[in-house]
């Protein structure tokens, strides 16, 4: 097992810069998820760690050893690919054993490890099949099995679940999480799906445009997003963002009555106030406003309502009530300013200095 240290890491293709000056410490034994929209450089970063891409700038160290010039095969890591990358002409058993045979490992040891991996992943019955005879989920298991048998210091996952259907993805997510608990090996996992990131990660790295937006536990990212991008990216349904003008410590938002702000350490006149759909209530709240139901999405344990305010802005409201609102109904929504996240004009989080004055 090993931790990783990334220092001023950069990647460029000619004039095109993919990753700039990235610093990151990955702790030994943690499940780190790299998440971000397409093109944010998360896969490139993973491939640089794997040794499949050159490192243009900075250093990557596994343990205490800088691996910039070490070929992929010498980095003692395993990688699971989005496409699974199974050898189509080999049986499952041969796929699992192939990597081990490179190291002239005794056959008995190869057999033991393959059998162990097959048992863990419950693919014992599939050992003689070819990849084309497997379902997507089974292929994924074999791909993970191929990573496990190496007994690496570090696992890398490149969007491993994105080719699976929704139900299987949820199932494999749980299995991966329990595999992590069982092995305790450092894992670096790339995904564009924030739900995957939230459910599996010890820590999440949110990337955008080749830069780190925020690093933190899922809870930290959800409860204290450091900027508007992270606020908008993490959490489902998506956070509500309200543009506010500030005067005399009063927030003026189109479509809402003016309300008092806590003391904020900023002189910015324009703020963005964010509130999670779950913190908006139907019918009551410290701050209330009238709106019209635009759309009702019944999800069973919750009902997601899209409410149009008089300003025209649509707020998402997650309501667990059984109130049968229908499209076009007038509705009163409310929230507590305590639940708001505040972002300055530059989109950076500002913490209320104190919450006195706000009745909780």
């Amino acid at each position: 097992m090993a931790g990783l240290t990334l220092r001023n890491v950069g990647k460029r293709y000619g004039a095109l810069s993919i990753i700039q000056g990235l610093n990151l410490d990955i702790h030994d034994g943690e499940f780190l998820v790299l998440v971000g929209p397409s093109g944010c450089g998360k896969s490139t970063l993973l491939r640089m760690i794997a040794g499949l891409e050159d490192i243009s700038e900075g250093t990557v160290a596994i343990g205490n050893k800088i691996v910039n010039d070490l070929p992929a095969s010498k980095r003692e890591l395993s990688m699971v690919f989005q496409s699974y990358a199974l050898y189509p002409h080999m049986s499952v058993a041969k796929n699992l054993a192939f990597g081990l045979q490179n190291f002239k490992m005794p056959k008995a040891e190869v057999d033991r490890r393959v059998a162990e991996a097959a048992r863990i992943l419950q693919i014992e019955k599939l050992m003689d099949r070819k990849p084309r005879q497997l379902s997507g989920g089974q292929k994924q298991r074999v791909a993970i099995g191929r990573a496990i048998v190496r007994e690496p210091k570090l696992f890398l996952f490149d969007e491993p679940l994105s080719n699976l259907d929704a139900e299987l993805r949820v199932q494999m997510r749980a299995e991966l999480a329990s595999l992590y608990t069982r092995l305790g090996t450092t894992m670096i996992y790339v995904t564009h799906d924030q739900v995957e990131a939230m459910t599996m990660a010890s820590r999440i790295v949110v990337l955008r445009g080749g830069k780190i937006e925020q690093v933190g536990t899922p809870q930290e990212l959800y409860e204290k997003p450091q900027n508007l991008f992270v606020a908008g990216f993490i959490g489902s349904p998506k956070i509500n963002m309200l543009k506010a003008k500030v005067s005399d410590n009063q927030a003026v938002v189109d479509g809402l009555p003016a309300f008092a702000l806590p003391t904020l350490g900023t002189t910015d006149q324009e703020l963005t106030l964010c509130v999670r759909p779950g913190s908006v209530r139907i019918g009551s709240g410290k701050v209330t406003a009238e709106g019209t139901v635009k759309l009702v999405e019944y999800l069973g344990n919750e009902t997601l309502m899209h409410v149009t305010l008089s300003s025209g802005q649509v707020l998402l409201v997650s309501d667990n009530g059984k109130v049968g609102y229908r499209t076009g109904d007038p509705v009163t929504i409310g929230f507590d300013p305590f639940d708001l996240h505040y972002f300055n004009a530059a989109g950076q989080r500002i913490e209320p200095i104190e919450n006195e004055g706000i009745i909780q």
Partner: protein
Amino acid sequence: MSRGSTSPLKASFMRRFIARNAPAYAFLTPWLLGFFLLALGPILASLYLSFTRYDMVNAPKWVGLANYEYMFTRDRRFWKALNVTFTYVALAVPARLIMALGVAMLLDKGLRTIGLYRAIFYLPSLLGASIAIAILWRQLFAADGVVNAVLGYFGIQGAAWITNPDTSLYTLVVLAMWQFGSPMLIFLAGLRGIPKDLYEAAEIDGTPKWRQFTRITLPLLAPVIFFNLVLQTIEAFKTFSSAFIISNGTGAPADSLLFYTVYLFNEAFKFFRMGYASALAWVLLIIIAIFTAISFLTSKYWVHYENERD
């Protein structure tokens, strides 16, 4: 109803059929004419002629299996021609395929001017079938030719490559190797079809390059190798113009370049033994068919198709 109502129906059906398909047949006519008059007709005629004695002046005379009997029991040049041709096929086909695969793998590395390189590398194949290249080849390997001149710089005493019966066939094998263009292009397409992440996975697992080649590239390329093998084998059996030119049309020296097709050509158009030549042609056809059949029958043991049904 009576017949009166069915026949207009039939007529209208015919009219519709003609109206709908006439353009297709119109476009097909040149090909159909060519096929029946220039290919199928002569093929069937040659089958008949192979059972006759025919000198192109007098009418063919039926001789039954006499041509075939002579061929297999008394014609020593026939066996010599088979020997030369089989030796050539056995050497030239693997040599060309290995060359083609090697070049394709170099080009697959992704050069910036790959289009240009592909065209340049294909050029020998375009030129290769031409008479000019065969003549050039004769000059290159002549006793006072370029090859010997170059060898001379290194202090190597060259041989009279073409006029020496021991080496003449190998100059043609080298020529065949040089004409790697078309199998190379097919290999290149095949290599492009192998997913890159298989190599990346192998790389991370510490697979040496040679093992990647033998365990990943070759098996996944097997359908393409098979295709090229069948095509090139047929091609090699039919080799004619280069052998004809380099041997001055005779199979010389000492029948060392007596390719089957050269022998056949001489029997037909030099000695006007059209019946015997036809029999030779049919035997060649059967030989090629047998080799192709063997290739197909063995292919299931070594060719893996990705989209195969189970």
